[in-house]
């Protein structure tokens, strides 16, 4: 008999006991003399007698119920399912779930299991026995129980169809939003019927919990990956400014979305010569960052770094080698020679590289104009290197277009303002890091509450005595 039936019988028995004891105590234990007492008194006596009897029987009823529950759910065949249900509570992933299927249902309870995501037609788990490993079983179950099968518990018959009588079942399955858990067990008839409701409730909660954890794990994984990527990209950039002969360098790098297509590099060639590079890959975010990593590392591994033209060609070839339709880079590549006091450069369509030089009437800005097309998409012809003289205290500013294109509330770009030019001139006498700080402050002052729309990268070099 099932627990529910047993409880009903106990409940009825308790009612009978109460009535019986009440009658016996009232009828046999009370002497006739009491019968003669006033009705109100008799009534009160009977109330007290009933209360005593009821309290005692009620206590016994509770104990009996506890005993029945313990005996039914925690001993015998149903205890396997109860143990399984208790364990589901602490399953946070499918692996945890498979583990308890193996440990409890398969090893302890001699059941075999098929766990199917019927919407995806995907077997999540199947026990290693003949029945559940047989493709025919799976085919039949899939055919009989489509993903639209109503949520709940269904008994399985001998031919893997539905049976309504649990006594004739060879197993059962739980269906929750297209996820089906088939449990084959020849002694299904021995399971208490009361176990299925909590089983199904716990199964549903497990599905929900796993989905939540899985979603959050994805968030955790992605955010970690995202951080790692940013870290990887930053590793490609100079980790610290090198100590250079007669050169001081400072840089600023702020990607718009964690990673960016902007890049800069400072590679000392010898005591007097330093390769300075700053560039910007078309597009933003991860795709641009991939090309940025490619360009940076291509330049790094080229042995002859004094041959600027070859470097440009190598970068061009590397990008073209990827055979991407819309990826290219603008880039400024230069060698500063502090012995000859020159800067040799190839400006592949990079905007705004400037030399700020001291003049009798203050500071003068000399642009290092473009002498090459964009790299990586069109054929390069006639790449040539230009050269400029440098003087002591000259400051060279390389900046991505993100700097000059910062817009204020009225849509005016920073590069078009006099303030920008003035700040450059005013700060030119400062150390490179201070100069960078001034420009960064100006950028944020200019943009006000507007969002940035591009990566911001700057590199400032100063020729010192």
């Amino acid at each position, binding site marked *: 008999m099932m627990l529910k039936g047993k409880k009903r019988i106990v409940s009825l028995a308790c*009612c009978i006991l109460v009535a019986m004891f009440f*009658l016996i105590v009232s009828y046999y234990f009370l002497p006739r003399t009491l019968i003669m007492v006033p009705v109100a008194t008799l009534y009160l006596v009977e109330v007290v007698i009933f209360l005593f009897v009821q309290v005692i029987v009620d206590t016994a009823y509770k104990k009996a119920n506890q005993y029945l529950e313990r005996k039914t759910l925690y001993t015998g065949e149903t205890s396997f399912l109860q143990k399984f249900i208790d364990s589901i509570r602490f*399953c946070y992933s499918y692996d945890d779930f498979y583990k308890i299927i193996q440990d409890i249902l398969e090893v302890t309870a001699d059941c075999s299991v098929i766990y199917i995501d019927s919407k995806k037609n995907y077997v999540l788990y199947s026990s290693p026995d003949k029945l559940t490993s047989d493709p025919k079983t799976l085919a039949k179950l899939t055919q009989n129980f489509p993903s639209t099968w109503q949520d709940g518990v269904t008994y399985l018959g001998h031919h893997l169809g539905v049976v309504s009588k649990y006594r004739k079942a060879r197993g059962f399955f739980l269906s929750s939003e297209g996820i089906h858990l088939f449990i084959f067990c020849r002694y299904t008839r021995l399971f208490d019927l009361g176990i299925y409701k909590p089983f199904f409730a716990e199964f549903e909660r497990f599905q929900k919990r796993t989905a939540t954890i899985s979603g959050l794990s994805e968030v955790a994984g992605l955010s970690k990956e995202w951080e790692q990527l940013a870290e990887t990209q930053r590793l490609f950039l100079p980790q610290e400014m090198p100590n250079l002969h007669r050169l001081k360098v400072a840089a600023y790098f702020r990607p718009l979305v964690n990673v960016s297509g902007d890049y800069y590099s400072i590679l000392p060639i010898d005591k007097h010569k330093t390769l300075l590079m700053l560039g910007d890959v078309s597009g933003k975010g991860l795709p641009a960052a991939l090309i940025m990593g490619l360009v940076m590392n291509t330049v790094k591994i080229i*042995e002859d770094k004094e041959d600027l033209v070859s470097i440009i060609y*190598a970068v061009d070839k590397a990008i073209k*080698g990827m055979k991407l339709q819309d990826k290219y880079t603008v880039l400024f590549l230069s060698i500063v020679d502090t012995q000859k006091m020159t800067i040799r450069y190839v400006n592949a369509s990079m905007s705004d590289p400037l030399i700020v030089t001291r003049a009798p009437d203050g500071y003068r800005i000399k642009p290092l104009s473009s002498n090459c097309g964009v790299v990586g998409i069109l054929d390069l012809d006639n790449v040539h290197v230009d050269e400029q003289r440098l003087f002591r205290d000259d400051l060279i500013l390389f900046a991505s277009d993100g700097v000059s294109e910062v817009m204020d509330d009225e849509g005016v770009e920073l590069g078009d303002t006099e303030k920008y030019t003035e700040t450059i001139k005013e700060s030119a006498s400062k150390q490179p890091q201070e100069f960078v700080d001034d420009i960064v402050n100006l950028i944020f002052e200019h943009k006000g509450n507007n969002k940035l729309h591009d990566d911001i990268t700057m590199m400032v070099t100063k020729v010192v005595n």
Partner: protein
Amino acid sequence: MTYLILNLLLGIFAIWCSTHVVTKDAENESAVINLLMISGAIAFIMAGANALIIYNGPVRFTEIVEHVLLLLDVVFFSLVAQYFLSFQKSKVSFFVKLLTFIFIAAGAYVSIAKISIENLREFTITSLPVFTGNLAILIPITWEQVFIGFYKFALPGFSMIIMLLKSENSNSRLSLQKASINVLGMVFYWLGYLFLMYCIKRLPMLKVMYPFFYAALALIFVRSLSHNKIYDFTALTTLVLKAIVRFVIPAFSCALIYVVLRPMYNKSHGLYVVLVFGFTLLAVYIFAFLSRMLSKFSNLRSAQYDTAFEEALSQINYDAESKEVCDNLLAIFKNYVSTQNMTVLTDNGNNELSVAYTSNENNFTVNINSRFIDVLLNTNTFILFKEDVAVNHELQEVRAELDELFIKSKSEAIIVMNEGSHVLGIIFLGEKRTGGSYDDYDKVVFTKLYSYFFVFGYYMKNIANASVVGTVNREIRMSAQIITSIQENMDYLNNPKMDAGYLMVPAHNIGGEFVDMIHLTATRHIFVIGSVSGKGISASMSMVIMKSIIRTYLATTHDFKKLVQKVNEFIRFNLPKGTFFAGLFCLMDFKTDTLYYINCGIPTMLLYTQAYSNVIEIQGKGYVLGFVKNIMPIAKVKQMHLNPGDIVGVSTNGLIDSHSLRGEQFGKDRLKQAITDNFMYPASRMVSFAMDSLKHFMSKELESDITMLFLKYMGKDAVVAEDEESVAEDGNDEFNAESEDEAVEPSVEENVSEQDETSSESLEQPSVDNNELDSNMEIPNMDSVVDSNVDDTIDESIDFPIEESVDTMSDNLNEMEDFFDESLKNL
């Protein structure tokens, strides 16, 4: 006889109860145990007295027994008074003990010296007036009345008032509630006593039932001690309502049936019995049913809140904003546990747990490396109540820290949410609205439902990053196309002598594995397959860069081994620390039907020989790139002569390490089987079949990236004149493929003859030999393909003296150890 049995049963019951009393109040607990035992003793003695009366025992002895009962009455009520006076105190004061002793002594004196038993059968007593003379007329009070009035009413009543006043002054609602329950118990006793006295007038023998009231009183005291929840209005209403439906209404109804049908008694006993029984049964059943129905109303649920609490927790919607989720959780705690406020601390990434949510403006942090956290984790204490700190000996060493934490957080209970040894966060629960403390039942429920708190903690920890997901997914979506395009960007083999098939299936979006084919000349083709360490987009980035870098190096490097060394250096010095590459570099020379390869830690390289229709493993030892500065001394170029029908199958570890639902590994044997079963198909079909075999084996989603490369050698006859011309044209360009090479010869006849020369690594490779090759074998350069404008030179292979090689290898091993040490430190 009935009374005798009832008293015996009562005695047994009271003694049994006294051995099962468990409360948190040790001193008061012993007091109520004493009371229970005395009530049990009284019941036993009463049963004895009954027996003496029934079986006509010695009169004097019966009288003594009844005096003993009186004396026990004195003891019982004196102890009741002591219990009231010492209620909620940790120790009974000497003064109270002295008072108790005096009361007992005085009571003993009065009961023995002043009171005599009037009627042994009816347990009636008599005594002389207390006063004599005129005073006796003025105050006609007897010793019996003094005895009963003082011990049964005055003494407990007075001490009860003191108890109530003290509880009122203690400002503890729980203490006041407990005192009130005691008072109710006392009032119940008095009413019962008066009722009994009333009934005794009609039924004198009923007096022997008075021990039942003692036991009931003692049980009510037990209840007041063990009940640590404060009834709020709802709970009290629920309790009263249930009691009314379950007990009071049925009692009055059934009593009414009994009384109303009483007139039938004289007419027909049988019918009367049947009717009373029938109606009583019906009434009891109906009210039992109503009582069950009542319990189903959520507002009238019992104090056993676990089921409803779990249901509510399972309904929390984690798609909502974090504040809403926290508010929901707090509402659930408020509703079911009466928690007033809640603070949630989560890991802020700086080795600190900081406030992520608070309902009472708490602001504090907890160092994640605090000693108490270690202790809690080590002792598996995830649910901790303030009161447990003092009694849990496992927490002794951090008691001060925990006390401070509870004070700082203004909380009464904490729930530590951990993932292994990492604490995700802590939930601090404030004091209960009812003023009661968190009890054992709360602990059982919290422990049982811990998984819900874990999910909450996991949510709180990660939800802050949820906004990243959209961005990352968008970036991945955009990049996946580019990465796939880069992965597919290779010089596909177009040579009738060889059929190449490959497969790259990332487990999640994008990965770090790749296959590359680089056309050097018409008779030379390079194949690279491998996996860059790490997963996801970071590994993809490294992969993309590496793939490009290999081609860039090919422009200036003309030695196969040096190419690998350069790649090794690049990984070591330019990619993020800890990155390595496990793979294989192959160079196929169609002119000599020879495959040169360097194993850089490829886990699987199989060779199918058609002549013998079997598959053997040939990869031998290999060292992954990126671990040591110089791979040259340890990397070996091996060569393998291919015969028509031979198939080389290479795979990364994702394939062979994949597990089935049952935890079995796919392994190399299954891959071998897939090759043997499908050798007649083109290479591209073969890799597909191998993948199908894996899918069928796994029956679940991929765990790791799967990358395979199958090279099927078609035959010598396929050399075309065009190729010859190309070779002639490219004759000036050279690519050196060997250094200290090992030859792999699939011819078994030759293998057998060369077994003695086979190195230890080739136990499973009967086709491997160690024949030294001509150190300057020249191979046409790839420059015609890669358009390098750099002049090509033939690199001499490096010939390491044995001593030097050993030293260098030793250095390299040291470097590897250093690398592992650094990696471990980073971890």
